[in-house]
């Protein structure tokens, strides 16, 4: 008998909302939280709008972790704290070897790498920080969370671009099924530094609009690419039995996951790989396409990719399933974008409310997009879609625990 893995805690750190309550308030109201970049001076850049997290690191992160971590890891540490508080879990676990951490990111500690490179090349080898060897590593967030919270169990670091948030949840479920009692899983990302952004301009996927209200319009005829964002989302995942024993209320069941690869980078226009990921996830969840009550779309706002996603949703579910993309209000936070989508989906199932796409005047197709205002609905099963730039597709089925 397979063990059911449930999510008992959600810790989002997003533009407009640190913690589940704030995050839910921001996305369910459909607020637009995009603004001109303040992390550095974007004056000479084609991209000037982003979703920035308003975050007091000094308040949320213990000093000794603060000095040796990148902003991304600081988001991750804070998100893990929030998720554990939400799950009413205070580390250390009774058995530290049964508690593990699995995280993902696209660019790792990019800002730390840029700072380190600057010191080395401007001042010389003697000026390289002793933290340089790990602060910019993709493994830093898993390492620091495991150290701070004494989690000695199965630890890991996955990189599947923007799909990573979903893949880490699937991996946490693997660990639970192999006997781990509690897993912290999720994504942390802080790509709003000059060097992480600059190489992307030539790829022409980022929105160059200077107007925050119209910069990120997925599924619209005016779609012109996505707005980059920073943030994190961590989850507490445990077996249903352990959650019950602890008296912690499960918010969602990780019920099915599918991962595939499209050999065409930059969002395969055919959508074939994404469709297969959906079918795998739905089959694994033991449900049928008509059981899906809401789809959280990948929503890149890159016209060919939006078109591919619409085609996939239509071919599998028809035009009746509600489709939403709250990230249109706060930006696409790379690996954290799918983790924040999963957080939104969990909260959505929990509240019986679908958070909207803030604005969508002229949709490219007649799907049932949830636009402008939250929609109350009987939600039992949610599907979250994600695509990585390099061709990774991922689909995750989450269910309300009573089903």
């Amino acid at each position, binding site marked *: 008998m397979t063990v059911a893995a449930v999510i008992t805690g959600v810790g989002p750190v997003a533009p407009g909302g640190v913690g589940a309550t704030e995050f839910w308030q921001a996305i369910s109201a459909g607020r637009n939280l995009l603004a001109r970049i303040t992390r550095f001076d974007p004056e000479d850049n084609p991209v000037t709008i982003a979703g920035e997290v308003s975050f007091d690191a000094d308040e949320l992160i213990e000093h000794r972790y603060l000095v040796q971590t990148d902003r991304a890891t600081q988001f991750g540490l804070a998100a893990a704290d929030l998720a554990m508080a939400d799950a009413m879990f205070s580390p250390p676990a009774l058995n530290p070897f049964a508690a593990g951490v699995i995280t993902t990111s696209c660019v790792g500690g990019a800002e730390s790498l840029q700072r380190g490179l600057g010191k080395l090349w401007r001042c010389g080898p003697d000026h390289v920080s002793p933290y340089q060897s790990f602060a910019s590593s993709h493994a830093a967030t898993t390492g620091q969370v495991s150290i701070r919270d004494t989690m000695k169990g199965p630890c890991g670091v996955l990189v599947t671009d923007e799909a990573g948030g979903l893949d880490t949840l699937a991996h946490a479920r693997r660990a639970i099924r192999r006997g781990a009692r509690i897993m912290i899983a999720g994504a942390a990302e802080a790509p709003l530094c000059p060097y992480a952004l600059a190489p992307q301009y030539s790829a022409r996927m980022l929105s160059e609009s200077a107007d925050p209200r119209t910069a990120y319009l997925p599924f619209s005829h005016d779609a012109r690419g996505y707005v980059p964002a920073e943030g994190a989302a961590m989850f507490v995942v445990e077996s249903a039995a352990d959650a019950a024993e602890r008296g912690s209320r499960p918010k969602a069941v990780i019920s099915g996951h599918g991962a595939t690869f499209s050999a065409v980078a930059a969002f395969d226009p055919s959508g074939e790989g994404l469709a297969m990921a959906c079918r795998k996830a739905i089959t694994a969840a033991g449900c049928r396409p008509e059981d899906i009550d809401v789809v959280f779309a990948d929503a890149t706002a890159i016209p060919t990719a939006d078109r591919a996603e619409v085609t996939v949703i239509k071919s599998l579910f028809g035009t009746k399933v509600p489709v939403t993309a709250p990230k249109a209000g706060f930006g696409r936070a790379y690996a954290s974008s799918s983790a924040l989508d999963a957080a939104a989906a969990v909260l959505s199932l929990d509240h019986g409310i679908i958070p909207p796409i803030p604005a969508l005047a002229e949709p490219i197709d007649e799907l049932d997009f949830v636009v402008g205002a939250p929609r109350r609905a009987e939600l039992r099963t949610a599907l979250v879609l994600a695509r990585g730039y390099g061709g*990774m597709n991922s689909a995750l089925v989450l269910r309300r625990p009573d089903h």
Partner: protein
Amino acid sequence: MMRRVVITGMGVTAPGGVGVSAFWELLTAGRPMTRLITRFDATPFRSRMAAECDLHPAVHGTTTRDTRWLDRYLQFATAAATEALRDSGLNAVEEDEWRVGVVMGTALGSAALLEQNYVVMSDSGAKWELDHQYGSPHLHLAWTPSMLGAEIARLCGARGPVHTVSSGCTAGIDAVGYAAQLILDGDADVVVAGGAEAPISPVTVGSFDAIRVTSSRNDDPEHSCRPFDRDRDGFVLGEGAAVLVLEERRHAIRRGATVLCEVAGYATLSSAHHMTGLTTDGRVLAVAITQVLNQARLGPTEIDYISANGTGTRQNDRHETNAVKLALGQYAYSVPMSSIKSMIGHALGASGAIELVASALAIERGAVPPTANLMAADPECDLDYVPDTAREHRVNVALSLGSGFGGFQSVMALRRPDSRGVETSRL
């Protein structure tokens, strides 16, 4: 019926030669490949040595396009994957592409390429806001190491789960372990897995200098990496790649593949102690070893060879020695345990995969590679490290150990095919 995971093909790119044959020849000859760095001018640095690969792309399966467009670590991986696929006899066209996956590990990915571009775009570090027009055209791909998994997936036609593992220095073992889990869980029938790394660049050398974990024996590069030796003073950087073809056992048998060995157990734990430091007792690594033995349903005395992490730092070698003693008890003194990093250096996220190939070869060829440069053992490192010369030795079960920054401790057991009829427990 319980699924089982076997290895049906291997490929390797390592200092001293490309391909499994050259690699095994180098290891059994006990020949260190550590030299002064030639990839860049390392004069200003404390540690100026590395074991570098000499890859001739055209000879080793990479095309002109690959050489032009692929970052160095991707070229290593491509060469190793090409060899592994050929070795396995896997015919991609006959496979269900959605059931073929890829899991590759790397610690730094394209960090060297990012550094080269940074120097140009920032005018040698003078500017914080960078001029994007001076970057190379596909530089946005360099930030995410997932390009490694994607590149290998394109090469072998995989359309199942394609994931990259970036858990630092244990990434190579972790990628293979994760691949095995995908097969056991029924998410794929074939997974091409391994690790690749090309870390030899100023920023990497500079960051390791800053915490003094690399050897500074620049006047004697060949004997600079001395795992378990009294006079060891740190690791020496390496580079390379290794790729293994993992298959569900019945899938392999059905297509008539040669089974090289079986993946019998895998665990990765975190010591939750320090990002770069280790506890001397080695307790967490010992727990990982015990977990792997339990999964494989093996007793300590059934282990015939241990491929050590053996970096040659003061801390690691004691930590590892104590872990093995804790896990295996008195038997720890009887099992040969060696570090091939003494010859090919530390290729970070690739080394775990490279060492798994060495372990699989030990099983297949009935010999264990030596620890080179072990002249006088540290009194606290008192196990059988197979000093200097390879040893003929029948190996049914090999254990490969990894330990890295972040506190990750990873262990994998490989077993001779059908050396025992029991089925793998949950891995």
